[in-house]
């Protein structure tokens, strides 16, 4: 079997002119994996890193040990989960529309990935801190972040807590456990480790959670983060959102020969689990476990959330140029909203009618806030923030040269 050295170039399962094909993705049955002890070691986490924790089966039943693990979750929490996801989807849709109408410069959806941020955030406590990427607005929704602030940021108007400084979607809110987003991929991941170290050193009982996309696991700071978490073992949860795509690049270009991203983390001696990210119950259960583990002082843990980026990368992107148009509908893990809805109906907590009604109520609420926020100005109807915000907060105290420049600007 000797051959000439020849480079390999990882390929996606299908390109635009082909039929979607996820046959090579192995989907283990729901309920197959145990709940490990909180002090799980990397060496004992192989099956969790290579397998997939799933709770909801195709029939909408919650099954297996992880279902038992969150059996005490009260019905309100489940309904809240559904409402969170519906709110997220409504917000995304409304803001996408706003961008299409030229009312904001840029937007980016998390469609299909709502369960991950919504389910995770509800397991955190006040004071815990996420270090998100630009696709985790769902954390804010489930943190009950005021929609006015969220939308204000998108319109860069007076309602924007960041006073127009940042590109839309680059939210920041300390009070709601959402670290200021950076456009530079990966950097936040090692910062999360540092924040968690500060937590441990100050003994404040808080934890931190890093977030990164599958594509960005390739960045250097992914390595920097795993390494430092592995060395100092602070209370940090290292989340990897594997949504199969990084703009136009298939996840295989970031996976390389690794079995899973979770297994790569395991190579650093960090216990790692892989989870059905479209299964709200699996997300809630594993998040609860991970949060408990971190808070109890068992050190870092890595979680690969397996999902699919249903939307375009952003409003600057058209995915039909690089993947089949109908790939999302072929995604074998389904839609997180539909799956939770089915389960809630199954257990008698929900119905089609209530669903339709809830959707309408939520859309109504979101639209009302949006209209109000838009009254403070949009891109087509600007009431811009003062240009002098440019100089505000570059430093705690404005140095002379900035004062001179501000004067030159006319302020």
């Amino acid at each position, binding site marked *: 079997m000797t051959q000439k050295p020849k*480079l390999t*170039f990882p390929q996606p399962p299908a*390109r635009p002119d082909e039929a979607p094909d996820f046959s090579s993705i192995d989907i283990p049955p729901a309920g197959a994996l145990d709940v490990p002890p909180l002090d799980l070691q990397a060496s004992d986490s192989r099956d969790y890193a290579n397998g997939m924790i799933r709770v909801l089966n195709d029939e909408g039943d919650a099954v297996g040990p992880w279902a038992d693990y969150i059996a005490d979750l009260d019905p309100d929490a489940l309904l809240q989960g559904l409402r969170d996801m519906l709110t997220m989807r409504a917000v995304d849709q409304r803001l996408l529309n706003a961008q299409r109408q030229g009312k904001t*410069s*840029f937007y980016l959806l998390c469609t299909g990935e709502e369960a991950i941020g919504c389910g995770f955030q509800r397991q955190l406590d006040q004071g815990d801190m996420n270090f998100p990427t630009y696709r985790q607005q769902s954390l804010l929704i489930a943190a009950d972040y005021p929609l006015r602030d969220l939308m204000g940021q998108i319109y*860069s*108007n007076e309602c*924007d807590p960041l*006073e*127009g*400084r*940042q*590109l*839309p979607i*680059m939210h920041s809110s300390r009070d709601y456990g959402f670290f200021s987003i*950076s*456009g*530079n*991929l*990966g950097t936040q991941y090692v910062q999360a480790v540092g924040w968690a170290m500060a937590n441990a050193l100050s003994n404040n009982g808080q934890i931190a959670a890093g977030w990164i996309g599958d*594509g*960005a696991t*390739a*960045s*250097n700071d992914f390595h920097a983060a795993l390494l430092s978490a592995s060395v100092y073992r602070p209370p940090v949860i290292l989340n990897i959102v594997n949504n199969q795509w*990084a*703009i*136009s*690049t298939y996840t295989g*270009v*970031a996976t*390389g020969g690794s079995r899973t991203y979770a297994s790569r983390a395991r190579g650093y001696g960090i216990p790692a689990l892989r989870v059905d990210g479209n299964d709200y119950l699996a997300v809630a259960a594993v998040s609860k476990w991970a949060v408990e583990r971190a808070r109890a002082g068992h050190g870092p843990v890595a979680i690969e959330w397996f999902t699919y980026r249903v939307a375009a990368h952003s409003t*600057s*992107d058209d995915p039909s*140029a*690089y993947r089949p148009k109908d790939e999302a509908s072929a995604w074998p893990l389904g839609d997180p909203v539909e799956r939770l809805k089915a389960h809630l109906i199954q257990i008698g907590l929900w119905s089609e009618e209530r669903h339709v009604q809830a959707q309408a109520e939520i859309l109504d609420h979101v639209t009302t806030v949006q209209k109000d926020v838009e009254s403070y100005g949009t891109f087509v109807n600007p009431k*811009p*923030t*003062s*240009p002098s*915000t*440019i*100089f505000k907060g*570059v430093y705690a105290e404005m140095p002379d*040269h*900035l004062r001179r*420049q501000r004067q030159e*600007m006319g302020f």
Partner: protein
Amino acid sequence: MPKMTMIEALRDAMDVKLAQDPKVLVFGEDVGYFGGVFRCTAGLQAKHGEERVFDTPINESAIVGMAVGMAAQGMRPCVEVQFADYVYPAYDQITQEAARLRHRSNEVFTCPLVVRMPTGGGIFGGQTHSQSPEALFTHVAGLKVVIPSTPYDAKGLLIAAIEDPDPVVFLEPKRLYNGPFYGDHSGKSVGWAQHPAGEVPEGHYTVDIGKADIRRAGSDVTILAYGTMVYVAEAAVEQSGIDAEIIDLRSLLPLDLETIKASVEKTGRCVVVHEATRTSGFGGELIAEVQEACFWHLKSPLQRVTGWDAPYPHATEWDYFPGPDRVARALKKTMED
């Protein structure tokens, strides 16, 4: 002659070199199948194959680090960093490795590579899609740093860069990809098809690295500009009515000091314009060189019009972008002094 946008001209340069030289390779994030987020490499993989044009993981250090190894082994990699704002993870490989390999090995190993990156603002990209980091490269011995302002120059300079025996940082003013931009706050610009510099010859030609271009002859004051600011300078000249000589530097390192000197000796006044933050920007270097070379000819202080010393903002982009008003004001001031 065919009309091309700057994007098409850049693509054409790579196409010409890929066809001509089997050692030329093109890669970067989203560069392969899709053809780049700005579509600069669209169609090149389909035409030249995946071994020549390919996608990479999101790791700029790996992109440039692989390119250094390939270049040392005889290849001619021309890599893309998706935005200049994301070049920093590769800063070590570019400045400590590519830049010094020839020297440190006494010319036994060399590093002919090109790092392309879209630079500058004016597209409401906020602080991580608008930066102009040229001064961070001009400080590094062993690098060349170029920045075209027309499709014609873009193609000619990129071919020259790929053929250059040394590493070249190739900055692409993204605001000029589709047309010249004079700083109009509506953001609108006419396309390259309407501009004479949109005429781009087919096939192989080069524009010398290290030669500036006098874009407008004038006698009152010399404007030194590059990239998007060349057009802003044109607009400012029109607006102010001052008879300025506009020099498009095109190459920052090496710098065409002779052309600059001849101009400033003639005009006795000089305004430098760039979009990057002011402090320690390339404008400082230009002023230092010009005052030393032309001191006895100077009639007034050299002026800088630059981005403010603050992160590039999103909403107030036009208050940050050094537009024609600010340049015109500096021109008037220099004439009054």
